[in-house]
C-alpha cells in the first residue's frame, strides 16, 4: 500500500508541473498577443494553458487530501501547513474561475490580459505552496527568506468565512439574475 507521503509527492509534482506549464503559457500568450494579433501560436498557447490548468486542477484535490493525511498531527498544527492549505485552495479557486471563464465567458478582447493574469496568479500560488512544502520537509527553499509564512497565518474566524462565502455566492447569483433580466 502506497503511503500518504509518497502519494502526496506524486500528486504534488503533477500539480506543480501542470500549473507551471499553464502559467508559462498564460504569460507568453499575453506577450504574443501584444505583438501579433491573430497567429497560430496564440491559439496553441491558449489551448495549452487551459488544458494544463485543467489537468493540474484535477490533480489538486489528491495533493491536498494526501498532504492532510501525510501530516501526522494535522495541518492545523503548523502555521506553515495552514498557509500551504490556504494558498493551495486560493490557487485552486483562481484556476477554477479561469477555467469557467474560458468556457463560458471568454472574450478575446481587453479582458484577455486580465484572464491571463489570473491564470498566472493561480500558478504563482501553487509554486509558492510547493516552495513552502520544501521549507517544511527540507528546511530550505526559494522562499526561505519569507519568515512571516513560517510563523504566522491570516486565519479568519468561522463567522467571517461564512460571510465571505455568502457574499460571493450572493454576488454571483445577483449578477446571473441581472444578466438574465436584461439579456
Amino acid at each position, binding site marked *: 500500500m502506497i503511503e500518504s507521503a509518497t502519494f502526496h509527492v506524486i500528486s504534488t509534482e503533477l500539480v506543480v508541473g501542470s500549473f507551471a506549464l499553464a502559467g508559462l503559457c498564460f504569460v507568453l500568450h499575453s506577450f504574443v498577443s501584444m505583438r501579433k494579433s491573430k497567429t497560430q501560436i496564440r491559439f496553441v498557447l491558449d489551448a495549452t494553458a487551459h488544458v494544463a490548468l485543467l489537468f493540474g486542477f484535477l490533480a489538486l484535490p489528491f495533493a491536498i487530501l494526501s498532504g492532510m493525511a501525510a501530516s501526522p498531527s494535522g495541518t492545523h498544527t503548523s502555521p506553515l501547513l495552514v498557509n500551504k492549505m490556504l494558498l493551495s485552495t486560493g490557487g*485552486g479557486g483562481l484556476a477554477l474561475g479561469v477555467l469557467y471563464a474560458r468556457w463560458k465567458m471568454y472574450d478575446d478582447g481587453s479582458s484577455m490580459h486580465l484572464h491571463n493574469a489570473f491564470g498566472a496568479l493561480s500558478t504563482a500560488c501553487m509554486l509558492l505552496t510547493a516552495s513552502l512544502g520544501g521549507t517544511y520537509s*527540507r528546511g530550505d527553499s526559494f522562499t526561505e527568506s519569507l519568515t512571516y509564512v513560517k510563523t504566522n497565518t491570516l486565519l479568519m474566524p468561522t463567522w467571517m468565512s461564512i460571510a465571505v462565502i455568502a457574499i460571493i455566492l450572493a454576488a454571483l447569483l445577483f449578477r446571473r439574475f441581472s444578466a438574465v433580466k436584461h439579456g
Partner: protein
Amino acid sequence: MRSKLVLLLVLSLLLPLHVSGNKGGVGNGLEDMQCGGACHGDANQNATSNLQFNLLQPESVWVGQPTELTVQISGFGVLHDVDQVGVFLLSSTNANGDIPTSNGWEILSDGFGGVNNYIEYSSVDSPTLSHTWILRPDEIGQKTLYVSVHHGDNTGSNAGRPFSGVSQPFLVSVEPIPDNLPRLHPDYKPPTSREIGQTTELCIATIDTDDVTIEWREPLGSTYQANTAQAGDCWTAELPAALSASTLEWRALLDGEGPQQSTPWFSLTSVEPPWEADETALRLQSIAHVIFFFGLVLLVRKPNRVHEDSKQYETSLDDGPDFVSNEHPPLPPEGLPQGWTMEDWRVYGLDYLEGRL
C-alpha cells in the same frame, strides 16, 4: 530573438547546479544513511568528511534494558570549519533500512526530546561534540552501530560543498539479564518531552526491585532527589515544572536482591505549547478561499451580455435608419430638447426618439 530565448533556457537549466547544500537542515528525524548523501543536496557534490568518531558504551549492555550510548565527534574548527552539523546513529551503512529501530534497537531518547536517530546541531562551539542516545536492545548477541555526519565547511578548497562521513563499525555486545537483577520493566518508556509549566508524574514499572530512588538534575548541575512512593505496579515520583524551554535529566536507582542498578540519565525536554489553529475554521476558510477567488475571477470581468448587447446594437444600427453617416439621428421638428447639446443628441438621440428617455 531566438538566440536570446535559447540563452535564457540554458541559463535556467544551469541555475540549479549552483545551488549549494541544504543550509537550513532537515530537522531531527528518523533518517537512513542515504539522507547524509542525498538529503543535503546532490549526492555527486559530496566531499568526504575528515571528522573523527567514537562511541562510548557501558561495560554491560543488558537485553531489554535502557543503554546509554554517547557519540563523540572531534575535529571541529581544526579539520572543518562547521556551522551546522547533522549526526546519525545507524545500524548499517546500506543507505536503506539502517535506522537502529530496523535492527533490534528501540530508541528511548535522542537527548533532544524525541526518539530520532538523526539530530542536528545549529552550531558547534568546541573541537569535540558529544551527544547521548538512550537505546534498548531487544535481543541478545553482537550488534553493530555506526556514527555518520553531514555538514558544510566555511573554509578550505571545498568551502561551500556538503561533506559526508561515516565511522568504522562499533560492536555492542548485548548480554542476557542476570537473575534477580533489579531492573526496569522491558515495556517501560520514559517521557521525552513536555510543555513548559507542566510537572511530570513518573510511573516507573520495575522487576525484582524492592526500592527506587529518583534523582533529577539540570544537565551537569546539582543532583536532587524526588519523593518516591509505590503505587500498584509502579513507583511514582513528580518532577518539577520548567519555567522556560530547557532540558531536565532524571534517573532511577534500583535496589533489590541483586546489585544496585542505576538507569541512564533520561532527558526530559520542556518546550513551548505547540501552535494549533481551529481546524473547523481552517477548513471553512479553505472553502471560502476557493469560492472567493472563483468569484473574484468572474466578478471583475465584464459580463458576456455587454458584448452581446453591443453586437445586437451594431446589428440594429445596420438595419435601422442610416444616421451613422449623418453622425447623429434626425432632429425632431421642434429641434433639440431643452438643455441638450449636439453631442448629447449624437449619443442619446435614438433613445429619445424611441421614447426610452
